[in-house]
């Protein structure tokens, strides 16, 4: 929550006497200022990827990008849901645990002999209802999303353990098919069904955010919730809606994760909610809400994935360096965002 304060764009809740932005946007510049953060992330991705391609053989191929997507398809879906929540100025800490719960429900159900399609529906319904309940509590009782989803995080993880404290492996044919199955694109690039699903979710999310009233209201709520309410927008529905979407995305990510891992484990995805938040923030979305794009979140995931891959390729660095790099990057991005906002004033 500290970082939420750092990026607050309006001085309304501080004693800083500077009036808000009032200068007209620079006309004629090539990119509108609101796209700058996404562009910055894109440039960063290209630079990092370029570094890898220059240093390591076999790095600079389209398949490396495809592998990035394959290894992170669940994180993309998670980050998409998280983007909705963060755009309203909220946060969802429960998603990592919901991923774990989903893998457990799937593995346990399959073990019990339930048909795979039913399992898929069951998992998605669980996550969606979980998100819906969190949203209702946040909206009805006007409680901080941080607290509610923190509780949700413990609850979901606990439920996963309740099913089994042991890892359950998945032997179901359909799931194994999803895991091993692949789509070959022109140029012999291979991606999994998981990537197709993740990118579809991303496209739908972009459409919903930019072309529907629900989506625009998400941005309005993030900009100024009270104003949005007075403007006659249905802010209650949107607030509940974004947590429901996030819950749905978390359970879908859980399914993708169980395709990827082929096991259910209550210890899966520990801390993955933080990876998702990091991806969204690195993707240029303001933690205070009201500004950002899902495409940015995709780029954020790719940046995180590239760091991981670079370290794997290097082979001499311990994997903890990933965390250190991500931490440094996150800090740099938040500071940059702040500086950009200042400049615009």
């Amino acid at each position, binding site marked *: 929550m500290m970082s939420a304060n750092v990026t607050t*764009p*309006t*001085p*309304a*809740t*501080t*004693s*800083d*006497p*500077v*009036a*808000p*932005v*009032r*200068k*007209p*946007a620079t006309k004629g510049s090539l990119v509108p200022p*609101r796209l700058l953060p996404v562009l910055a992330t894109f440039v960063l991705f290209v630079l990092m990827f370029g570094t890898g391609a220059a240093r390591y053989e076999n790095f600079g191929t389209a398949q490396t990008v495809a592998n990035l997507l394959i290894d992170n398809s669940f994180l993309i879906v998670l980050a998409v849901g998280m983007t909705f929540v963060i755009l309203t100025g909220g946060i969802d800490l429960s998603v990592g645990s919901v991923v774990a719960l989903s893998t457990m429900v799937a593995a346990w159900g399959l073990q019990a002999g339930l048909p795979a399609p039913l399992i898929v529906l069951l998992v998605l319904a669980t996550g969606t209802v979980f998100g819906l309940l969190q949203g209702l509590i946040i909206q009805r009782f006007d409680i901080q999303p941080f607290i509610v989803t923190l509780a949700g995080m413990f609850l979901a993880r606990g439920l996963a353990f309740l099913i089994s404290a042991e890892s359950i492996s998945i032997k179901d044919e359909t799931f194994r098919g999803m895991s091993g199955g692949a789509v070959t694109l022109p140029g012999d690039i291979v991606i999994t069904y998981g990537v197709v699903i993740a990118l579809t979710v991303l496209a739908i999310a972009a*459409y919903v955010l*930019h*072309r*529907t*009233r629900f989506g*625009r*209201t998400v*941005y*309005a709520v*993030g*900009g*100024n919730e*009270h*104003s*949005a*309410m*007075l*403007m*006659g*927008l*249905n802010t*209650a529905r949107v607030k509940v809606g974004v947590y429901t979407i996030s819950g749905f995305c978390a359970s879908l990510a859980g399914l993708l994760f169980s395709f990827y891992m082929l096991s259910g484990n209550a210890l899966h995805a520990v801390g993955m909610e933080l990876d998702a938040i990091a991806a969204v923030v690195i993707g240029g979305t303001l933690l205070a809400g*009201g*500004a950002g794009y899902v495409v940015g979140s995709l780029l954020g995931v790719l940046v995180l994935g590239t760091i991981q891959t670079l370290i794997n390729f290097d082979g001499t660095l311990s994997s903890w360096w990933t965390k250190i790099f991500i931490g440094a990057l996150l800090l740099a991005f938040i500071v940059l965002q702040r500086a950009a906002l200042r400049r615009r004033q």
Partner: protein
Amino acid sequence: MTEAATAQKPSSTGAPVVEMRGISIEFPGVKALQDVDFRLLPGEVHALMGENGAGKSTLIKALTGVYTIDSGQIRVGGAPVSFARPAEAQAAGVSTVYQEVNLCANLTVAENILLGREPRKAGAIDGRAMRARAREVLTSIGLHIDPASTLSTHPIAVQQLVAIARAVAVDASVLILDEPTSSLDADEVAELFRIMRTLRDKGTAILFVSHFLDQVYEISDRMTVLRNGKLVGEYLTAELSRLDLISAMIGRELGEMDALARMTASHEADSSRVPTLRARGLGRVGSIEPMDLDVHAGEVVGLAGLLGSGRTELVRLLFGADRPERGTIEVDGKPVSIRNPRNAIAAGIAFASEDRKGEGLIADLSIRDNLVLAMQASRGWARPVPRRLKDELIEKYIELLDIRPANPDALIRNLSGGNQQKVILARWLVTQPKLLILDEPTRGIDIGAKAQIMKLVATLAAEGMAVIFISAELEEVLRISDRVVVLRDRQKIAELEGRSASVNDVMSLIASHSDGSTLERNAS
């Protein structure tokens, strides 16, 4: 400009579109409304009058479903209603501009106008049609800005016009305007009135709130007066004299207030001494042409000019809210480098900006906490303010400015709009600055309090403070100022003796440089 003939004649006297009976609302510790009746007829402009905190905004919010009423009955179009949310009121044909400009600054102008009713094609929002429709609406209210621009890039007045555009963009049977004119200049007000008349003649019922009596008399057909949350009465504008209106609002005779209002700055500045503020060649590209400005201790310098002439831009440079690109500033003869507001505050400059929301009142804290924060910030955190001094100062300014409720522990967010404005003023006054910059300090403040603020400014100057005073009301500027600096197109075009200059002098000065495009205001 005035069309007195049409203003006197309500074009319709049909059954009321809005009827409120026995409305009561109580907030913890405040009876905001007690047994208030109100009705609104189709085809009339109805002014809701009363002092700051009288309950005007509360009555409006009771109607539109922001607040739930404790007792009473509301009918819209004859049918009993109880809106749970503003969305429901809007659906029933009640379109509202609330007192605080309530828009989303992070979205585009077009979205702010059409949010919730965007034109759609095959279920998806049609961006092109939306911008076209927004442009249409903006043009109809005489505002020429790019609908695709982000709202936050526009000044407050433009944002207020955008809020009005949003309200008139729908065919509503009831239009509510809670102090829509507070940051508009004369041309824009005239434009707004033209639109209001057109709508009224089409049968729209309009509820209008303003503290400018001239405007109220020009536009309204009927008035309802509230005092301390109670109904005083309903009158035909043509049958109620200003004096009677004022005494209905404040509940006493005008005598003492009139004396206040007529008070002029009676102090004498000593211009031979080193000026408190001396700015030379101060400017910033795209904001203000380089100019000189002196303000002496005990002197009130007014800035006159149309909206967009650079009044606010100039003082933002002085305060470091925008970084000056050229020029020098001296305070008490010592050069100071002002790069940000902190430097300015350290140099003894205070700036009460025109933007109430952005002013940094902390809505969830009390009046006392807000004032203490300001005091503490100005002294630096290492030197605590003695408790007794704190309490004394806080009490002094609550009384001087007549902040209501006069309870230092009242939360800012629960104060009426006008009273919040007074706390902002108090916040700067407690820091006891050398130079006080007031940008539209009387906006949204009732006439009684206005007179008090003018008196306060005069007193502060007499005690040796240097003051820069900005107001859209030229009379006000001329009355209070020793010297008036006239701005046009971001340049200083003249300096006049405040007390001898007349409104006409200033207007003709501005007009003589004018090319007649003042309404054609772009965002820049």
